[in-house]
């Protein structure tokens, strides 16, 4: 067993050394560009005029490559669905112990009551301001889900409304697609943000539909992450 283990790790080390040589040549021959390439320069020059967003990364994700983001959200939805499917068969009985059979402490419970509203507010702040500051729907959604995780840790026996989470998730996904189709009808194409006025550059309610779309993405991502966490939490202890 021991010799087998060492041969195995030796082979792994040799392979990784080869990969490391490849990485070394990549890193050694790398010089940072002095100029933006054509795609990036286009985004840098035209983001403000075409989308009205301050954050160029947000403009790329929500508007220029909006279809890819829709696909990404779909992948997340699929992940949440498959996790629920895989773990659904071994769900703890209702009111049963679940994985969190240890009661949480007073400190965690009180802390959760105080922190949860602030975490939720911060998540909403991050996804509403996605077009102005670093942040956006995915980050904000992850913050919302971290609040849900805190709640799950503080009250392990509590069962959340699956119905509420899946309703938030499906409604926000549906409205996201409808906004995309409205872009075809009212503006230049699928998920075009100019269905709403672009507004003042740098204001909270500006950049057309970007704050709306990012809010929907934030809710959807938050609901998906929460449902993944919940599926993992509700499993029965083996």
């Amino acid at each position, binding site marked *: 067993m021991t010799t087998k283990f060492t041969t195995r790790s030796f082979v792994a080390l040799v392979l*990784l050394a080869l990969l*490391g040589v490849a990485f070394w040549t990549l890193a050694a021959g790398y010089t940072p560009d002095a100029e933006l390439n054509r795609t990036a320069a286009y985004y840098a020059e035209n983001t403000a005029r075409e989308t009205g967003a301050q954050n*160029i990364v947000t403009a790329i994700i929500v508007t220029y490559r909006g279809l890819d983001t829709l696909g990404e959200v779909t992948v997340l939805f699929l992940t949440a669905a498959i996790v629920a499917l895989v773990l659904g068969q071994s769900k703890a009985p209702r009111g049963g112990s679940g994985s969190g059979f240890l009661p949480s402490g007073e400190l965690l419970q009180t802390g959760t009551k105080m922190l949860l509203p602030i975490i939720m507010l911060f998540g909403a702040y991050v996804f509403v301001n996605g077009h102005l500051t670093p942040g956006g729907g995915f980050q904000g959604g992850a913050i919302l889900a971290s609040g849900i995780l805190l709640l799950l840790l503080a009250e392990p026996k509590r069962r959340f409304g699956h119905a509420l989470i899946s309703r938030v998730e499906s409604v926000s996904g549906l409205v996201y697609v409808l906004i995309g189709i409205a872009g075809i009808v009212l503006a230049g194409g699928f998920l075009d943000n100019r269905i709403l006025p672009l507004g003042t550059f740098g204001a909270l309610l500006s950049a057309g539909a970007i704050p709306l779309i990012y809010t929907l993405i934030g809710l959807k991502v938050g609901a998906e992450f929460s449902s993944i966490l919940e599926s993992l939490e509700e499993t029965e202890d083996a």
Partner: protein
Amino acid sequence: MLPTIAMATGFALILMGLYGALTHRNILRMILGFTIASTGVNVVLVSVGYMPGRTAPIMDSAVPVADAAARVIDPVPQALVLTAIVIGLGVTALMLAYAYRLFRIRHSLDISKFTELKW
């Protein structure tokens, strides 16, 4: 200098993660190895977009709209990495769910206990 350090760190993380995933026998440790490797890939991608003397691709008071193209770093790798992080999280969640199912079957997380696909 800065992108070289970031890139070397990223490559080192990839190699460390893959080494952990290849040598450990515990499924949870293998998942952890994959997560570390994917973090390394993200660090390398972000470091490729870095350009010396430039700032983040957000047009505020520090970066006037008119000469944004000369002042900001490449925003495309950052958008890519955002996607990669989210997909990486989905992959990790799936791996953990399957690890739980495997644990339910064998009551063990040792990969050498699972011999069905071995030859």
